[in-house]
């Protein structure tokens, strides 16, 4: 079940709400069991993401460029602009929603499915999954039922099928597909490493989700081109 606060829970955890909104949301949570539960789930997701094993971050990613961006912003002459009329964002916006964070977490699980994950006892944790209805509804599903594992299996399966059917594709198509898959996989890996370095950044969470989704979509398409699933 969702209400007008559901999509703002991540902002709340991110300390991105105004003082009045924060007070109002805290008051709402006391009376709304769904939101309170969703908030707890979100807290668990964030905590789990923090528990990711540290990995060497690619050179260049270690450098925090935000101060430089901030400095550039300061260098831009500032003029006063009217306070914007705050209207609810369209329901289809793609960042900061609970469902997307949850789906991104699934992607993190998928892409980081190593012994490290299991050492942190992910098997007993509940995670959130985006509903088929388009992200508006939240459904708690046990990680052991593993949408992450299913997705991981699908990627492995698609790669296996694609490898078996390489000769069904003409060389130029195969080259195009392989180059693109390499590009997407590199983007997934970069997003994953970035998220490990900064697990609280909602942009990185959403970006990893998007890149992982693109990888799966491209693999499915490649298999279709090679003759479809059997």
């Amino acid at each position, binding site marked *: 079940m969702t209400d007008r606060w559901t999509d703002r829970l991540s902002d709340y955890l*991110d*300390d*991105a709400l105004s003082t009045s909104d924060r007070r109002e949301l805290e008051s709402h949570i006391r009376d709304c069991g769904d939101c309170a539960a969703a908030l707890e789930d979100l807290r668990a997701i964030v905590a789990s993401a923090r528990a990711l094993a540290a990995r060497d971050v690619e050179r*260049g*990613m270690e*450098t925090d*460029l*935000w101060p*430089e*961006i*901030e400095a*550039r*912003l300061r260098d*831009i*002459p*500032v*003029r*006063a*602009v*009217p*306070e*914007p*009329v*705050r*209207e609810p*964002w*369209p329901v*289809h*916006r*793609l*960042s900061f929603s609970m469902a997307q964070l949850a789906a991104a977490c699934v992607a993190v699980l998928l892409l980081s499915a190593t012994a490290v994950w299991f050492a942190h006892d992910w098997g007993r944790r509940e995670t959130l999954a985006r509903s088929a209805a388009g992200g508006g509804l939240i459904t708690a599903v046990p990680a052991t039922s593993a949408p992450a594992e299913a997705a991981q299996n699908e990627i492995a399966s698609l790669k296996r099928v694609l490898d078996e059917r390489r000769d069904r*594709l*003409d060389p*130029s*198509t195969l080259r*195009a*597909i392989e*180059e*693109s898959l390499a*590009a*997407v996989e590199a*983007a997934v890996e*970069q*997003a994953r490493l*970035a998220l490990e370095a*900064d697990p*609280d*950044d*909602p*942009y*990185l969470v959403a*970006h990893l989700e*998007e*890149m992982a989704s*693109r990888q799966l979509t*491209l693999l499915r*398409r490649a298999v279709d*081109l090679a003759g479809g699933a059997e």
Partner: protein
Amino acid sequence: MLASLAFAALTAFTLASDADTTIAVTPGTTLQVANYAGSVVVETWKRDAVRIEATHSEEDKIWIRSMDGVLLVKTTTSPKAQRNADIHITAPTWMNLEVSGTHTDVAVEGTRGALTVTTVSGDVEVAGSRGRAVLNTVNHDIRVIRGSGTVVTESVNGDCVLRSMDADTVDASTINGSVVFEGVYRPAGFYRLASHHGDVAVAVPGACNGTFAVATFSGGFTSAFPVSVTGANKGRRFQFALGDGRARIELKSFQGTIHLYRAGTRIPIQLHPESHEGLARDIEHFDR
């Protein structure tokens, strides 16, 4: 050859090379075009009929089939034969279009129905779409001119260039290419422009009412005019509003630079050469 056929009586037939066929269709019919390699060009007219002009090898066939409210135009060829077929279609403006290919360039002009384009190694060019347009290529560029309604573009290695837009909703994303957006930001409109490696360049008209949300991981941000940050979140994210801030504009680049430039001035980023050439060609072609 020019033949007129009643759609209702049509089941399936093939076109000879250099064929020119016109088929009557009833409102609500969807046109599906599948061409493995070559080009598909779709223009529109007010007649309730579909004209199909095809140029292809004698060894290949173009099937035309109707079933369940769908008119299918499909090229059958051996993928390893590396032969192209060029299909030029004139369709009713109301018609929903689904175009797919692999090594296929696709150009569509003036459709008011839903439009879906999927190709791998081919450019996608759309002018004047008014319905929901979902455009996808893997290795080449997507260019949209004068799109309205909803426009979704997705590439992996190509650019997404959208100009003279008047759309309510835009979602343009690529991984290795750049994204350019020029046009109107409609009240309560939503615009998401994103790249992983590439730059994102957005033109801002003089009278702009939008809230811009900028996010990057290791990229930069430039602006040709003053902005006043109203919300700097943790990490490398911030917001600012222009005018009444009603439209929502999300600008994201993982590693590239996000540019704001004044509408009517030069695009501040380097696009793939083909994007420039193609765009110029499109404007000349579509604005005739």
